[in-house]
């Protein structure tokens, strides 16, 4: 149990460190993957909704404290994303990488919708900004993140394919 906690703590810590150090380097047109959200997704589909909500809340809260966003904005978005990903956990669904990728895309959309909606409400911005943000920011970021997450699947997937050949 302790090793499991440490493993996930290390995963989140690594994701946060890479997000601040490595992601800006690999960003294309200021669009880069959201590694903490990807790790949160993997955590939630592995450990379920309750833990996903708790971890998402604290992860979002931590991001709120260290980013210039409204306090609670990231927390709410990550909580909802964690709840959504946790609902489709591995105990209740097949663990096909393609399905996971699709789910990850939806998780990103849920997360960014809530994030942008809160921003729009608090700062009295236009609703169209939410859709604009989803289309031009969320979607590329989600696709990039799915591509990065694909590297994780590739670790288990490629050797099997190669072995078949």
């Amino acid at each position, binding site marked *: 149990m302790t090793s499991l906690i440490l493993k996930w703590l290390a995963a989140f810590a690594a994701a946060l460190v890479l997000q601040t150090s490595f992601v800006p380097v690999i960003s294309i047109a200021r669009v880069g993957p959201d590694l903490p959200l990807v790790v949160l997704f993997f955590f939630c589909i592995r450990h379920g909704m*309750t833990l996903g909500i708790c971890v998402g*809340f604290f992860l*979002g809260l931590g991001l*709120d*404290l260290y980013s210039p966003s409204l306090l*609670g904005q990231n927390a709410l978005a990550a*909580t909802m994303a964690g709840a959504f990903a946790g609902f489709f956990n591995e105990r209740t669904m097949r663990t096909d990488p393609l399905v996971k990728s699709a789910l990850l895309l939806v998780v990103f959309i849920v997360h960014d919708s809530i994030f942008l909606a809160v921003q729009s409400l*608090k700062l009295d911005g236009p609703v169209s900004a939410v859709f604009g943000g989803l289309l031009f920011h969320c979607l590329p970021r989600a696709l990039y993140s799915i591509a990065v997450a694909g590297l994780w699947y590739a670790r288990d997937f490629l050797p099997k394919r190669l072995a078949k050949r």
Partner: protein
Amino acid sequence: MQWILRFFVVHRSLTSLFVASLLCVLMLSSPPARQQWISRALTMSVFYPFQFYFSQTERIKNIYAENRRLKEQVAFLSVKVAQLTENVRENERLTDLLGISSRFSFTLAPARVVARDPSYLSRSAIIDVGKNEGVAAYMPVITSRGVAGKIVQAMGRMSLVQLLVDPANRTGVMIGRSRETGILETVNGSDFSIMFRAHADVEVGDTIVTSGLGGIYPKGLLAGTVTKLEEGRDPIFKKAFVKLEVNLDRLEEVFVIKQPSQWAAFRDELDSLEAAP
């Protein structure tokens, strides 16, 4: 009460979602001052270990950036130091040359070597002074340490110097101590020798200076040192091997002694002799 607890346990996912969402909404709806207070309280308590961790990673990031900046600075300063060292060496050389200029009563034209004979044995060099500076053929070329060669061709702004290493070059020299005269010559461009009569007073370590008898070099310019004496089969002569004083492979700044050849007075007669059938 038990009913409530059971509800929480059974619907713990929904409960946690509700509580987390409620907390988020409360934080979002609180005034900015309260938000700041919550942020500070959380940063100082719950998130302190993470804050410490992130401050360390940020510090490491800064260290990397500083390390990179310092490396660039070191590279820049290394180049600067190399340039300054080169300047110091050049200054020393030029100071030496100025020393020579004060020692000799000749008019000296300072010059830089701008090109060398590309062959393995550099027999000649081109310097950046020529007829415009009053340089003419057969003028001696020296360095701060001694004789280097002579001008064989003077052009407008540059001149060709025949160095001592050229086997075609023969220089009238004498032993500084005993005043025995001879001709400094080389066959291969690296070994220099002077043939003396067998009974000449020559010893290893003797200083060789120009004799002034060749018509080109003034008397008394340092040429080299006797390193070895060889008694040949010929009982009449002995051979003194000489190490040149000037390192001709590293020639950079030189002086041209603006002294016309002593043959200049006989130039017309010499030319008429050459022209005669």
